[in-house]
């Protein structure tokens, strides 16, 4: 049987040609059009833990590495990498390591547990804080307080949040400052606070005193006693006392003096 050689050659040349032209086009484009990436970005990405937790405020470890190399972002924003990570980044960037980032931990700013806070309804829906919050503002009497359906606990990659007597409590040793719980809470109750701070106002209610008292036994009633005693480290935000963590606050007397019993040592 005679084989027509052209019936093999033409397709081979044809597809080969298409491939060759494509490859050439790509090679030329790569040579003349490609944007050179800073080689430090790759190195920095390797220094970071690669957990993509977003705790630094960027969209992931690679994004943070790019921000350090190209936009001069601070090099000590990564809590999981810790001091060793910062030192490695500093070596790549040729910069001083500077001070270790101050360790922050998540804190649930509510202490109205089920013995203190009133429930105004019986919620029987999906066991999720966002769903409960969306259902007529939640079943808790206080519209600012912790709903206790553990959305933050499920968001925590370390399993460091437990539900204690109907409210969320963060295990400070387990916290890696990733901020997942902060974004999981539909009521924005969780804040990242310096680990060194001991005294906190565990209430987020912005209601006036009488309204708070009606629904919770441990809410901030806006009496301003703590603002006077603390020497500026606690300030009022409307009817709510808020701790300014940039200032020193060590006076244990505050805890006893708070008529709402919401200033506590954590």
């Amino acid at each position, binding site marked *: 049987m005679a084989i027509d050689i052209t019936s093999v050659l033409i397709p081979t040349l044809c597809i080969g040609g298409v491939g060759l032209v494509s*490859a050439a086009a790509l090679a030329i484009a790569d040579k003349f059009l490609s944007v050179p990436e800073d080689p430090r970005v790759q190195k920095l990405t390797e220094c970071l833990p690669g957990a993509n937790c977003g705790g630094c405020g960027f969209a992931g470890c690679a994004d943070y590495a790019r921000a350090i190399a190209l936009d001069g972002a601070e090099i000590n924003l990564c809590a999981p990498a810790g001091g060793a990570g910062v030192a490695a980044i500093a070596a790549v960037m040729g910069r001083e390591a500077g001070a270790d980032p101050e360790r922050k931990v998540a804190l649930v700013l509510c202490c109205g547990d089920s013995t203190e806070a009133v429930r105004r309804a019986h919620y029987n829906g*999906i066991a999720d804080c966002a769903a409960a919050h969306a259902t007529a503002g939640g079943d808790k009497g206080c519209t600012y307080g912790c709903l206790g359906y553990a959305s933050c606990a499920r968001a925590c990659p370390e399993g460091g949040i437990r539900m204690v007597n109907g409210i969320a409590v963060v295990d400070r040793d387990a916290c890696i400052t990733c901020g997942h719980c902060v974004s999981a809470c539909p009521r924005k109750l969780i804040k990242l606070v310096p680990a060194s701070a001991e005294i906190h106002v565990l209430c987020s209610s912005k209601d006036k005193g009488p309204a708070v008292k009606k629904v919770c036994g441990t809410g901030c009633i806006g009496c301003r006693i703590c603002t006077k005693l603390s020497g500026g480290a606690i300030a009022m935000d409307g009817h709510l006392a808020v701790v300014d963590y940039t200032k020193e606050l060590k006076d244990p007397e505050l805890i006893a003096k708070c008529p709402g019993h919401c200033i506590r040592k954590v």
Partner: protein
Amino acid sequence: MEYVILIVSAVLVNNFVLSRFLGICPFLGVSRRIPTAMGMSGAVIFIMTLASAVTWALQRLMLDPLGLGYLQTLAFILTIAALVQLIDIVMKRFVPPLHAALGIFLPLITTNCAVLGAAVINMKEGYGFFKSVLFGFSAALGFAFALLIFTGLRERIELADPPQCFKGVAISLITAGLLSLAFMGFSGLVK
């Protein structure tokens, strides 16, 4: 009128995902969050329109005259993959914002069956150049439409509480099936 029918047919009646069952991987893969789904949709619309144009030229100007129609699949995969890479490079250089929005999705659709499917259907139906491009665009529009509907549904399902055995992928597949069934209702709208 002819063109309107073509668009309606590609978007609704013969929806790529829900009636032709093409492009199922991104349909299930990037349908967790609306922003990601939007990025993917944008990338698919962009690539599918361009790929339709390029493959039309390849088929009509090279494969057909040489009688190599049987090499269609191979040639199309080759050119589409190269095209996507090329666009990736060009986009990164000249339109960085667009690249930031679509960039990570581009490599995902280099060998997407929906893109290849659009090209092959164009040839099978014997569309002209303009019609091919229009078909590619509206098929991608249909893909985006289905993807966004499905993503919206999935975002809600995340909050729901299905029985243990249906959790996760199982309930997603059932949802996709029901959605497909719903789209079957469009059949007969356009012959």
